[in-house]
């Protein structure tokens, strides 16, 4: 697919200078790399996000392909989490936030006024930075979603969904004998996997993860990363992470954000070995950020 030029709608001035090196992509005020994929599950075009007067996301276009993990990296405040939260309209809950542009899920505009955000968030689930299990039993944490969304017809169905979800989240063996105990009593890593089980219990199409391992120890992090790799076979995943190594390990494509702009997107292997944009190179090699 052709590399897409992404020109600013509002100004002819370049928003940031590109590398003067002869080897750098010379596009100005656009995204370096392939923003489109052949089989997009979600497709965004010219997305702008404002928090009041602050222009938090500027003219971002990016596809998230089926069964791929897209990692979003960038320094704090670059807009990666803001962009992620646009993908299931979590920003709707933020006062003064305005989102423009086109965001499609399976070619359907998720910002269409007719769209109900509740079923949208079933289709596009989210896992947050800090594990946030409900103050209920392990079983109820996973059963809550399918039950409230009417996805089951019997208790046997529900039992099966709970077991399957916990197995997919790699937690079943650790909790199968204590399903009635509070989810908040689990370790941090187990709680995060419980939250992932809760997310996948409603059979989403896309899972958004906002720094899902930042509060976890290395072993728990490794388990989540292994899980992300397994979940990719069934789900589409977009993950925001501050860990470059994690982005390199879990994702197939990586998007680098800087000051609200999508600077570069590409195959993860290429981004971490030979990025085309100097800003990407400087960030991932620790020159700034």
């Amino acid at each position: 697919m052709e590399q897409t030029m992404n020109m600013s709608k509002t100004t002819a001035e370049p928003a940031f200078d590109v590398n003067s090196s002869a080897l750098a992509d010379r596009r100005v005020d656009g995204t370096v790399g392939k923003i489109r994929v052949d089989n997009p599950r979600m497709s965004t075009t010219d997305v702008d996000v404002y928090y009041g007067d602050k222009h938090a996301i500027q003219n971002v276009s990016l596809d998230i392909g089926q069964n791929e993990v897209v990692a979003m990296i960038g320094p704090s405040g670059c807009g990666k989490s803001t962009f992620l939260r646009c993908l299931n309209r979590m920003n709707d809950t933020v006062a003064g936030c305005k989102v423009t542009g086109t965001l499609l899920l399976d070619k359907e505009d998720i910002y269409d006024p007719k769209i109900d955000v509740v079923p949208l968030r079933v289709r596009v689930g989210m896992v947050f930075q800090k594990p946030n299990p409900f103050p209920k039993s392990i079983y109820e944490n996973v059963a809550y979603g399918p039950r409230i969304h009417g996805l089951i017809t019997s208790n046997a169905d529900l039992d099966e969904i709970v077991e399957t979800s916990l197995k997919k989240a790699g937690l079943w063996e650790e909790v199968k004998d204590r399903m009635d105990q509070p989810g908040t009593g689990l370790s941090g890593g187990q709680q995060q996997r419980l939250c992932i089980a809760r997310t996948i219990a409603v059979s989403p199409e896309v899972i958004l993860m906002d720094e899902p391992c930042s509060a976890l120890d290395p072993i728990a992090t490794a388990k989540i990363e292994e899980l992300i790799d397994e979940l990719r076979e069934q789900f589409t995943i977009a993950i925001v992470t501050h860990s470059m190594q994690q982005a390199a390990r879990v994702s197939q494509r990586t998007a680098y954000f800087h000051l609200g702009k999508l600077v570069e997107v590409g195959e993860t292997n290429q981004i971490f070995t030979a990025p085309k944009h100097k800003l990407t190179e400087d960030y991932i090699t620790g020159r700034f950020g």
Partner: protein
Amino acid sequence: MSNTDKPTPRLGQGHTVHRYDQGIKQLRSIILDLGNNARKELKLVSEALIQCDSNKAHEVVTQVNSLRNLILQADEDCMELIAMHNPMAGDLRLIMALSKCICEFERISNQANKIAKIAVKSIKASQPSQGNSKALSYDVSRISELAMHMLDLSLQILENESVELAVDLVQSDDAIDELFAAAIRHLSTYIMEDPRNIGQVIETVLVLKAFEKIGDHAANVGERVIFAVTGKDVSFLNSEQLGQGLLDP
């Protein structure tokens, strides 16, 4: 935000963690020492051959393993930098390139030692006044000069990361190959003229081949630097493709 206000830092500089920059500086310095030591050996052995001075050749032979400590230190530094700093992109490419340069200079030193051993034996056995010896040394002189020039260039490139010079160096590998092929043609006439020359010619061929290999290793340093700076692996490009490959986005 502008990136053009400040000059682009050389690879391995300007890291937020100063210890990383110091580590790269130290590694580069050790590898340059390694290269300079290999250069000294090459210079000595070239002089030994041209001047028929077996003492100089003997000096190189006795220096065998002199680079061992530098090689071990450089390898250790590479591993430490990777383990401690998890380098990415240009940093990763630079460390990989420097790591491979260690091997290239080690092999240059090995080839110099190989030439020195042949020289010690052949200088003692030969009569310098013989016409044949002088004629044979002409080919050796030309190829050793080119090998020395390529090694000098490789050290310069390693220090200043000049892609343009690196391209020149890689392309000059063709010249040393041609020189070697021409020398072989030349030497074959000596065998045809007098089969008794065969022993001396075989030794000369081995020497010429070792110089040609030194040129290869020096050119490899150029390829490693091109890879570190541009991210493009040019190992398997021919001379014509080389310039073109680097211009592609």
